[in-house]
């Protein structure tokens, strides 16, 4: 069975003043794939994420998701289409409880109106109960249910990273973008995270794209890898191909001219 293409970027460029953050970026990801995006600092990885999620509008080029163009859509519209993300520098709703963080992410699927909310009748009751149950279920998957009523900022670092993933999943995405999920984790935590990402992908029938510096994680779970340098894709392929690619080795280790 041939897998469906989910996201495609063609000749995408993003220019900030005189700086070309991303240029002629070509990219695709198929349904169900687990793809990595690597490259040195400042190579344009997070910019690529921001382009996919509508935070930036590409200066030129096209991006399509599930066959439809998403260029010019606002971030919340893109989320509603089915792309969810986590952030490199954790962006939780830190003064709210862990449970509320996940509840908020259900927002775009809740249908009750203002009147029902204020009078607490009708769909408000059924939908709020459903959201609460669903949120607690997600928290228990990520081993956070015992912290459900604590404030998000009081969680240990690794748990905050897990909560970000749980929150992103609560929007029920088709494509999950993870921006350095293992940043600041020790090798043991990274290994657990790897297993979790793989499990989440199978359990939720997701497609996953991740940015990561930890090579053991990238090489361990990604099926395909894109390497960015100075805003351009310098290589793409399977982990084995990337590891032996001379351009990549040069970009990472520096080579003789």
């Amino acid at each position, binding site marked *: 069975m041939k897998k469906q293409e989910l996201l495609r970027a063609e000749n995408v460029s993003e220019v900030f003043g005189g700086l070309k953050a991303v240029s002629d970026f070509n990219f695709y990801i198929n349904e169900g794939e687990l793809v990595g995006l690597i490259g040195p600092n400042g190579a344009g990885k997070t910019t690529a994420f921001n382009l996919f*999620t509508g*935070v930036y509008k590409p200066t030129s080029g096209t991006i399509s998701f599930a066959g439809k163009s998403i260029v010019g859509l*606002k*971030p*919340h519209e893109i*989320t*509603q289409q089915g792309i*969810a*993300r986590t*952030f490199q520098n954790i*962006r*939780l*709703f*830190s*003064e*709210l409880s862990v449970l*509320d963080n996940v*509840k*908020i*992410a*259900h*927002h*775009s699927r*809740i249908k*009750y109106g*203002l009147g029902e*909310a*204020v*009078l*607490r009748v009708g769909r*408000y009751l059924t*939908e*709020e109960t459903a*959201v609460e149950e669903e949120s607690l279920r997600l928290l228990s998957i990520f081993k956070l249910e015992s912290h459900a*009523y604590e404030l998000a900022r009081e969680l240990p670092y690794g748990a905050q990273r897990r909560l970000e993933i749980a*929150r*992103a999943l609560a*929007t029920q995405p088709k494509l999950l973008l993870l921006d350095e999920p293992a940043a600041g984790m020790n090798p043991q935590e990274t290994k657990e995270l790897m297993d979790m990402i793989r499990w989440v992908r199978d359990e939720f029938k997701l497609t996953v794209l991740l940015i990561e510096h930890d090579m053991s994680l990238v090489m361990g779970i990604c099926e395909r890898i894109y390497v960015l340098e100075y805003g351009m894709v310098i290589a793409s392929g399977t982990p084995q191909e990337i590891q032996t690619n001379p351009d990549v080795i040069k970009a990472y280790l520096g080579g003789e001219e």
Partner: protein
Amino acid sequence: MFLALGLIVFALLQGLMAAKIIGSFWQLNITIIGINIILAASLNLINGYTGQFSLGHAGFMAVGAYVSVVLTTNFQVPFVPALLVGGVMAGLLGFLIGLPTLRLKGDYLAIATLGLGEIIRIVIMNIPYVGGAAGFKGIPHHTTFAWVFGFMLLTLFFIKNFVNSTHGRACIAIRENEIAAEAMGINTTKYKVMAFTIGAGFAGIAGGLFAHMFYIISPASFTFMQSFNYLIMVVLGGLGSLTGAIAGAFFVTFISAALASVPEFRMIIFALLLILLMFYRPQGLFGYVEITHLGPWREFFLRKERAKR
């Protein structure tokens, strides 16, 4: 339960007033506290829950006040419909003003709303039909403690249920982290404008209640100093806490009334209290916390939550 508690407090105060234990000076002040609670709670929805720093609340109050007094005095419209029309007009204005200004953030939004509040006041001052700078005279005295208390309960009920719904959570998410809120599928512009509109609407109702307490109102009652006053109530009580808004409104109104006998020291004592509070409790009396989350209450409510499951 919320309503029952409200009715008990109401019965108690009304009884004390009827028995003349609370004199007319304090009776007036308690009514003003009620109006200020509406204003503080509605400003808290904008500043505290949604995190949009607005300083134009007195302007919306003025719109509600003038619209309702024109309706009751010149057109003999009954009191409550006039109040509601005043609230709707203030809300509508809030919507129209919110659309462009809520693109601004932080200090810039504060200055823009401050300016808009002043524009509203100066426009009213230049409309001869409502008396201009001299003020609008001959307002029927409709506002009673009972009406104020009723509308106060309505406001608190509305805002409490609003912030505990998905719509309110969207607003709080914007305060906490706007970029993450967008990434979670929240239309941030829509919810900022919604909070602003609702807040302005309740400010309009409060303005109508305020106006019908007196024989005359003038634009001088709605200067930016008034907006600051409500901001002080909200910050003092705790941004993002309804209990805090109530406590703040009560505290500020009570202190300025209690110090009315020593007018020359009033502002000094008041300023000192504020400075001390900001030193020792910068998050306000209640912070983000509601009274129902504290101490023995917390246990009580958590048990109720658990019992539901």
